[in-house]
């Protein structure tokens, strides 16, 4: 049996399409965990990144924190948090957020900091308030890079959210972990395919968001 046979066997089995352990249900769970983690990470990373990028201060501290966070293994963190505070949604969110904050934070900081200073000076000369300068001048120009930070965070979250299944939560990781213990490779391959597909959908969504949100004047460069 090669991988395509496994995929075919998994997706053509109608039992995988219904009920509590069905693909739609697992898909929704996976999307829910991923969105929640991305929202929390963005709520932390975006404001801090925008502020430090605008003022240009704290870049070194930021780089240090991001590096330190990156050195923490997601899976190890998950097991540790579960051992310390027990099962639940929170122990899954902690490693996912720790994983996703550094790319958002660092790219946002860098995106805002590297905006061409001349329009910023012009806006300041015209008497715009600092918050207006940030949101009306710097953010629109920095948006493509900010989105790319969010995108890589989102893709990492989607493929790492599979570890939720290890601590008895649902999501697409369920198929992978269950398949592993049941020695049922169909399930493992099916689960992996679904996760990879979701990652590709995420890529496409961010591409579409870029087309919609980024001003044409910025995009043309």
């Amino acid at each position, binding site marked *: 049996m090669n*991988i395509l046979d496994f995929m075919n066997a998994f997706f053509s089995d109608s039992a995988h399409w219904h009920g509590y352990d069905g693909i739609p249900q697992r898909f929704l769970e996976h999307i829910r965990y991923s969105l929640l983690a991305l929202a929390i990470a963005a709520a932390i990373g975006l404001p801090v990144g925008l502020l430090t990028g605008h003022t240009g201060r704290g*870049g*070194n501290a*930021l*780089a*240090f924190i*991001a*590096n*330190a966070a*990156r*050195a*923490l*293994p*997601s*899976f*190890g*963190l998950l*097991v*540790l948090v579960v*051992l*310390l505070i027990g099962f639940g949604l929170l122990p899954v969110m902690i490693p996912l957020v720790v*994983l996703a904050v*550094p*790319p958002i934070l*660092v*790219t946002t900081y*860098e*995106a805002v900091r590297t905006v061409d200073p001349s329009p910023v000076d012009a806006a300041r000369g015209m008497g715009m308030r600092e918050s207006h300068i940030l949101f009306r001048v710097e953010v629109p120009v920095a948006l493509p*890079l900010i989105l*790319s*930070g969010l*995108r*890589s965070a989102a*893709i*990492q979250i*989607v*493929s*790492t959210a*599979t*570890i939720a299944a*290890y601590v008895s939560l649902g999501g697409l*990781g369920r198929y*992978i*972990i269950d*398949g*592993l213990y049941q020695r049922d*490779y169909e399930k*493992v*391959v099916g*689960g*992996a395919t679904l*996760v*990879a597909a979701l*990652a*590709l959908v995420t*890529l496409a969504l961010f591409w579409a968001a870029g087309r919609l949100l980024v001003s044409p004047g910025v995009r043309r460069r």
Partner: protein
Amino acid sequence: MSGFFDIPSDLQHSWAGLIGLHLREALIPVAAGLLLALPVAQLCGRFRWLYPPVLGMTTVLYAIPSLAFFVVLIDYTGQTELTVMIPLALYSLVVLIPAIVDGVRAVPPETLAAATAMGFGPLRRYTQVQLPIAAPAIIAGLRVATASSISLVSIGALIGNQGALGNLLAAAQKYDRPELAVNSVITMAVLAILCDALLVLLRVLLTPWMPRGTRQGPAARPEPYGAGSATR
């Protein structure tokens, strides 16, 4: 009373032994990834149409969860270190290829023209001019790949004791000894930070013409993240 460094005997390694094993399982794939990425990136630089499909392919590979990757490979390579190392090497490509391509592309055309005028052939120009100038970008990519690889080895614990320090996580649950999990996470984090520091040192040694004070790590540069990449 079992202490912080008392490793359960079923792991068949001491703490130091696990560290050695972990470094081997994490670093060999990054080195293999670099060896694979250099020619691929060179081809992508030469034939520009090749770059987007290569990038797309590595991104799809990267989206496959490591655990699933391991399990599928067990059929071919068994429950061995190789099963853990193959996916890690492939994951590292998603960071390394863009880092090398961007780094090599950033070499100013005048510099290349000067090298050509001095009689450098394509190979010598690549190894003695383009690669050294691209070194900071390549090392930035290596830093991300290394940190990610060190963290991912631990997932190997789920396919039967192939996770080196990650095996401590399984043992922590099995024997209900949370201090083993603390040991595992902290040791992995310290290893990642030490390897990162070594790579920074390597960059300083490889690029003696650059000012020492400037921070040019990946944490201060958007590229490695922007490439749709990094840790897991």
